[in-house]
């Protein structure tokens, strides 16, 4: 039986803690009957689709102070997990220090959903389209749990096979290192994000790729990070492709190898609307094309740095 209306079940009680600690304690007390809610857009969609039951208790994170906003801290760009996606897009700090993240967020849902949905919600879904960009930006997550505050690399958290459900904690911030790019004289930073779906806008993704790195004055690549996701795929870094490129020039040989490596290593979760092969080859195409744009030929052919491949 498909669950359809919230009223069919009890309407959940809504708890509105004022601090992260209070929220964590409430969750611990209520256990599996309770769910943290931020913007609630994904929860609502899942309840409506019947893929998730409406819980007995909602713990609203929206009234906790200090969980939203964007600021600089300890050499990082700190983004409060409760920051609405549209607020992220409009934030000048994020635009300056993590444009790849802004580019990714711009492709998520539509304006009205981005007004409510939060960056934290997109992250904890583990398949959100901001994730490849955050991976490429080497982001970390700041959690608040019963044992206090803990920071871990986003890449590490995503590579956990199954998150430990018994561990009660909430995502407080995502941190993006400001990067030492200024220290490398004359290195040219580049980044790109692509989302390919089945429609031009407001589409579920089939393929997402993000990459960033530096082109040294001698033409060699350094600091390369490449990630890919899409659909129900938990995004991951493509480490072997990164390693393959490090210290090399983006010449046809290197690009050919990267093409193969991306296609081999990117393992999308099955999607009923597109075969894996299409997604692998699309990811490979987008990655090598972004690298090719760094070459003289690529620039001459109209591939603008950092611009989408279209």
């Amino acid at each position, binding site marked *: 039986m498909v669950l359809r209306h919230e009223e069919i079940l009890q309407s959940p009680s809504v708890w509105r803690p004022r601090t992260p600690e209070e929220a964590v304690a409430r969750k611990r007390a209520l256990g599996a009957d309770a769910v943290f809610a931020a913007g609630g857009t994904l929860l609502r969609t899942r309840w409506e689709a019947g893929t998730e039951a409406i819980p007995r208790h909602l713990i609203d994170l929206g009234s906790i102070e200090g969980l939203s906003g964007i600021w600089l801290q300890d050499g990082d760009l700190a983004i409060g997990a409760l920051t609405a996606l549209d607020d992220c897009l409009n934030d000048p700090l994020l635009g300056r220090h993590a444009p790849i993240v802004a580019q990714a967020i711009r492709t998520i849902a539509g304006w009205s959903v981005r007004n409510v949905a939060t960056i934290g919600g997109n992250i904890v879904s583990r398949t959100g389209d901001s994730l490849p960009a955050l991976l490429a930006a080497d982001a970390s997550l700041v959690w608040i749990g019963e044992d206090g505050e803990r920071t871990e690399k986003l890449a590490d958290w995503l590579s956990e096979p199954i998150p430990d459900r018994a561990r009660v904690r909430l995502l407080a911030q995502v941190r993006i290192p400001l990067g030492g790019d200024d220290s490398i004289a004359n290195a040219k930073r580049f980044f790109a994000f692509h989302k390919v779906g089945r429609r031009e806008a407001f589409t579920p993704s089939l393929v997402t790729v993000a990459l960033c790195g530096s082109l040294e004055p001698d033409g060699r690549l350094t600091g390369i990070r490449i990630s890919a996701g899409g659909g129900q795929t938990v995004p991951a870094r493509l480490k072997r492709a990164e390693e393959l490129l490090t210290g090399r020039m983006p010449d046809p040989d290197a690009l050919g190898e990267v093409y193969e490596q991306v296609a081999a290593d990117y393992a999308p979760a099955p999607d009923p609307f597109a075969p894996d092969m299409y997604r692998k*080859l699309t990811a490979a195409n987008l990655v090598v094309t972004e690298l090719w744009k760094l070459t003289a030929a690529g620039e001459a052919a109209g591939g603008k740095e950092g611009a989408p491949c279209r």
Partner: protein
Amino acid sequence: MPLNRTTSGDRWRVRPDGPDKVTGRLPYLTDLSLPGMLHGRVLRSPYPHARIVSIRTEKAKAIPGVCAVLTSADVPGLNRFGIARPDQPVFCEDRVRFIGDAVAAVAAETEALAAYALTQIEVDYEPLPVVDDPESALSPDSVKLFEHGNVLHRSDYGCGDVEAGFAACRHIVEETYSTPRQMHTYMETEGGLFVPEPNGRLTVYAPTQHGFMDRMQLARILNRPEADIRVVSSPIGGSFGGKDELNVQPYGALLALACGRPVKLHNSRWESVRAGLKRHPMKITMKTGTDEHGRLLAHQVRIVSDAGPYSTLSAEVLNFAVEHVIGPYRFGAVKVESVSVFTNNGMSGEFRGFGGNQAIFALEGQMDRLAEKLGIDPWTFRLMNMRQPGDPGPLGQPIAQTDGARQVWEALADCRLWKEKAAAGNRSETRPPWIKTGYGAALVMHGAGLGVGIPDPAGGRLTLAGDGKIEAAFGYEEFGQGLIASLEQMLIEQFGFDAQDLRIVIGDTDAVPDSGSSTASRATSMMWQALKRLHPPFATALRKQASRALGVGMEKLVLGRGGIRDAESGSLLISYGELAKTASEPIVAETKFAYPTSPVDRVGAHYLYTYASVAVKVEVNTLTGRVKLLDQFHAVAAGPVVNPQGYLGQIEGGSGMALGFALTEDAVMDKGMYLTRNLDTYLIPTIAELSGGFEVLPIEELPEGDKHGPRGVGEIGSVGLAPAIAAAVHDAVGKRVNKLPIDPALLLEKPVFLNKAVEWR
């Protein structure tokens, strides 16, 4: 002259239903509520195919606040519906044949309670093998949905000797084309309010495209006289053919009568997806050949259409497809075989274009492929083989002659976009190498009206009402196309009335004559015809009454804004209000006639056709295989433009829908289950798909002596775009598309700069 607001001048009018639409004031039928109303819900099958072992409703009935739980045992009349052939169960008795089949329905005090009550109805099913492929459903050892088998309908057509034709061919192209299960995706899902009246009648407030047909079907189900039922059916939040058949009406009506209280139903999107109609997925195999000069000698076609489990209008859609796979071309010999097949997939039925979309995608694909083989420009190739004035229709039937095919052909050859194509060949593109652009075109000949052998009544009534309003009553529906606006505009332009003089009455079986269905691009055409017939008697009656009242000779009086005016000076002599007061009874003129048909004995053959040509420019990103529509041109030969805003809107809107058919839309099913349950996975075009250039060129000229006036344009905009896009994709990347929506995987290319041969295994 391209059609837009500027070129339309004063004829571009604000729609009478506009102010209420832009303010949200307009009550749709799913917005209605009444004090004390109950909420209805339908229990549908969880299996695409199963035997019903038992149904137990006791638990659900015992819930306080649940007023009725109905099953097949509670249907007083015929437990079936279907416009053409009633074979769809209102409630299944012993077997379910698709995921939307209804088993029971409840009415309860709240929607929550009704939903809960559904969970308390106990149904034991015994799943049966699922027949989900029409081809294998035809094999003798397939599981049968019905005792008589899985064939719903066959329609064949032949003319000349195709074998001999192929033997004489120099070039032959053979291809199989597949089209998707497109969903209408009207923004307002099905629903309505069902009210038992104190006098024992039942009022049904629920969208449909033919109120009288609903009334007839409901009378049959409820076992009541039709006169005891009133169907109010407009305004409608979109239909596109999808609400022509009954949907929630049987359940609302049965529940309301069982409870003696008003009942409201409003489908969720998922319920709309699972129970509603879709466009027939078709597989069309064509073998077509020419001689060495490019003259079409033989055309052989096989159509297999997936009807889903019940008939509705599947046979009629198939007949239409048979006619339109032949289309506007002369063939030496033609042989068409077609079959519509019952499966356990979703219900297929009427959808804007009515089988023409699938047929013409295939037919135009053949034209492009043959032209390529011959090395002839594809547009020229079409002209070489086009039917000529005086030629019969596709099925050899007499048709109303126009020069539409040649007119739209020439308009396209002369349009900006086509000239741009010619110029583009000599220009090097400055785009990145993975972006490829291309141009394509398609020709469309589309029948209007229901065709031979199907009752196709028309009619209307004009009344000078007691309050002085000129009341125009028609049995048509307003589902967004601008029918009310078109009617108002015709009354103003043909009779000289002012908008303020008019009261337009539609969509209410108690108040309007049966004008037939608002379908098959027929309503505007039939309103025009009706007004033409009503003009002389109604104008005469008004003038006669005025003459009597004023003591002035009739010849000195004309109809005008606000009332009867002096024929010479134009000054107002008597207002319609005053005129009405002088009459002892309302002045009425009424007409009844039928849509014109061809004098042949071929069911479904059409008499009136509309022609269109479509040119497009697309961009293919070979890194992702995605296609973007950049620019489009439509020439439409459909006679005079009745309502410029409506005309433009129909072509733009139809084309938008066709873009989805071509690129993004498919209600994908797996073993009889929908994978696309809502608009998060079923993707209709957004504004980002459709912000490119758009030009409509109406060709209004009709042959001298043509009596039929404006042809409908409700469907034709939705037909030609997909084949034009397929041609443009080929122009861009050299690949032929034979399946819609276009699969990006087909268009993916490895970047050329990877000059080292790296093969992905």
